[in-house]
């Protein structure tokens, strides 16, 4: 899939422990391919993801950031993903307002049973970010090179 | 549903602002309707027929003009479907389809009658003129 030397966007995926991380595991169990430049960070709940983490990822060279959590209503902690939904809605809207490509950020609800959705989401998201090219608008030049 | 019907259905849904899918088929609209016996298509059927795109018969039905627009069905419907608004929208569609100017402004003075409410004139003019 990836040709060597070709531009590969770096994707950071925050996955909640209960649904999405398990969904990612299921994608693995079913041997569903998705790009290797997707790297997963486990968090207890999507609501643990601070906007600062999202910005940090971009600063350090990520080209896209995706948050995955339980479907609304299915949160292991009952309400965590509802807060995530509000926080990220506002954060992403703000990033878009500042002229940062909106395709670089995403929230997706992936249940533990949705291995196929996880893989498909990652494929599609990586493709969308790849189409934008390198993240230039939220980069920190000191972290490049 | 062919494209034309689908468009017509969408138009009616748009004009009425009613979402017929919300109907749970309880029939309370028909149970409450004072003009029920005059209609060949009853309020609950009306909703269902719009939902399924079976609008042609409605356009040509007498029922269309039997509805008193008393809004009892709107008031009683447990799902907030508002059948009377659908009836009104289908009426408009019928009028528009005919494309004719049924009522000209000049005709109105002749029609005036002391007992006729002003509102009826205005609403008739709105409905039946182009």
């Amino acid at each position, binding site marked *: 899939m*990836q040709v060597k030397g070709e531009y590969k966007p*770096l994707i*950071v995926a925050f996955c909640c422990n209960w649904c999405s*991380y*398990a969904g*990612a*595991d299921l*994608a*693995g169990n079913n*041997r*569903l*391919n998705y790009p*290797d430049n997707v*790297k*997963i*960070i*486990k*968090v*207890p*709940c999507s*609501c*643990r*993801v*601070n*906007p*600062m*983490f999202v910005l*940090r*990822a971009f600063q*350090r*060279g*990520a080209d896209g950031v995706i948050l995955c959590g339980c479907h609304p*209503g*299915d949160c*292991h*902690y*009952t*309400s*965590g993903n509802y*807060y995530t939904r509000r*926080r990220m809605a506002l954060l992403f809207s703000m990033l878009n307002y500042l002229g940062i490509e909106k395709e670089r950020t995403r929230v997706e609800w992936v249940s533990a049973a949705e291995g196929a959705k996880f893989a498909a989401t990652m494929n599609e998201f990586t493709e969308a970010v790849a189409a934008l090219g390198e993240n230039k608008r939220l980069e920190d030049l000191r972290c490049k090179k | 549903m062919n494209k034309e019907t689908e468009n017509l259905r969408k138009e009616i849904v748009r004009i009425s602002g009613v979402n017929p899918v*919300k109907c*749970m*088929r*309880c*029939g*309370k*609209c*028909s*149970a*409450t*309707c004072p003009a*029920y*016996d005059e209609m060949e298509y*009853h309020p609950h*059927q009306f909703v269902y027929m719009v939902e399924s795109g079976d609008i042609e018969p409605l356009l040509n039905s007498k029922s269309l003009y039997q509805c008193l627009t008393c809004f009892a069905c709107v008031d*009683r419907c*447990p*799902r*907030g479907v508002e059948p009377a608004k659908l009836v009104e929208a289908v009426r408009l569609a019928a009028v528009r389809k005919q494309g004719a100017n049924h009522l000209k402004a000049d005709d109105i003075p002749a029609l005036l009658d002391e007992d006729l409410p002003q509102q009826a004139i205005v609403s008739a003019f709105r409905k039946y003129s182009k």
Partner: protein
Amino acid sequence: MQRIGVFVCWCGSNIAGTVDVQAVSEALKNEPGVVFSTNYQYMCSQAGQDIIKNAIKEHKLTGMVVCSCSPRMHEATFRKTAAAAGLNSYMVEIANIREQCSWVHKDMQIGTEKAIILGKAAIAKVNLNAPLVPGESPVTKRALVIGGGIAGIQTALDIAEAGFPVDIVETKPTIGGKMAQLDKTFPTLDCAACILTPKMVDVAQNENIRIFSYSEVTEVKGFVGNFDVKIKKKARYVKEDVCTGCGLCTEKCPQKKVPNEFNLGMDNRRAIYIPFAQAVPKVATIDPNACNMLKNGKCGVCAKVCAAGAIDYKQQDEIIEEKYGAIVAATGFNPISMDKFDEYAYNQSKDVITSLEFERLTNAAGPSAGKLIRPSDGKHPHTIVFVQCVGSRCAACAEKGKEYCSKICCMYTAKHAMLTRDKYPDTEVYVFYIDVRTPGKNFDEFYRRAVEEYGVHYIKGMVGKVAPEGDKLMVQASDLLANKQLHIAADLVVLAAAIEPDKSARPLATMLTASMDTNDFFTEAHPKLRPVESPTAGIFLSGACQGPKDIPETVSQASAAAAKVIGLLCKDKLTGNPCVAHSNELMCNGCSSCERVCPYGAITYIDKEFRMPDRTTRVRRVASVNPAVCQGCGACTVACPSGAMDLNGFASKQIMAEVDAICK
């Protein structure tokens, strides 16, 4: 600086097939903090675990990273391994190089590169890990059940049977709840009193159970295992321990015109009353709003006739403070008000009644002594119309009805219809329904019997209007299958009113910091897997306060809640999950953001004195997390603008270190 060991697992060929494990363990050797790195065929095997244990001892490891399968598979295994070798379990991190690497990539080079990065991220995290020790808290071995209906009774009995003391708090003068008002129960048609009252007696006689009737919970503090509760015992002006329940006072009381709530106001009671014959406790209660003695000091008949001398007009409300380990909410339901349903003429005609009123009318102990009569004129009704879904499944107006299905109405209406036809075969019975929902053991058979054997007219359609006309009720309805509008002259109309949670549930939920849905039903910790627990630890749910339920379901949930309570009370100490939030008090400004997002009510505020750098002291309001209650979701950490709130095991710095390592 940590001393970290890295253990790369081949998982046979599962990992080693796509990841050059040797290269991974070599590459990770040079990461900061790493003092040992190796790889092995099966790290989870005994031999693999021995490698880990030896390395921990030999290299004095303070932390370790296992590059292996998903932590969901073997994190617990490796934590135990670490603990066995004397390393704190929470100093273990897993790099998931199987499910999230070797299994999803095909190219060896790509897989190896990714595995190295995942390993580096895990190492970056371990570098910031700190040993965590789960907290412990004692358990008060006493349970509180709030609500004395069948749900509360069953829960209390089960807990008491297991040997734990239980208190029931009931706002009414007697336990028994809604079930005590019912006549027969579906689908077996046994008499409600016959199966309920023995249980009420069991409660009264059980040494482990205390009943606080005519009481309410006013304050709840504390957390799982350690609740401090204040219960207000309202003055009933009768000494409970003295009253023999002979009932003489209730016969002699001159104030006869008090609507009897037990019979839903269909008859009257006295100012001093015992709700019904089998009440538990069987003690009289004086209604202070109706009693002349209490209102203006003119009467005193009851005191005169009471041989036991139980009357005490000077009695005061009493506050009881008790400690509990677990609390069960069993606050039950009520039918909704019919005031907004003008179309059914409920407020216009006495002969339009709710189903619960119908229960009382057919109950042998009810206002008509079990004779089915019209409330208006006492005549026998010959045509009865039952209307289902009155206010249920109503999405149009939140003030009028409820969006949900009330679940029990289909069955009790079938029961009413059947019993009517059985007792009075000359009566025509119509049931108007939208759908008949009978998913339950023997439920559909029951409903079909009503139709097939008892000749009840089930009509698919809704009643649109009920208009009193002379001594008849003109019912206008639709018959959807016949496509007809029907006009029925009925003698009695029975409305299957939707049910809603009891009004006391909302303030109780606030006290318990238990969450509720928009309909004021208590939310369960998980809709499928933890249906009888509230998300707030130590709070359990029993019966209709969690959602509409019939009796069998209520009883099974009640017992399930009891089982959960017993499970909790059996423990001497509670061991918590150490990955909980904690607040850095020096940075906390007490703004309450974290408290508001906490689904468990784990955060409280304390005023604490701080020594300022300039040697003055200042009292500040700061957040304090109860580790026994916190479940570690982390919602508070993001709500906190100053970063005072952080999460053990998933600290901001740790996550950022992972981000950095991945994005390098």
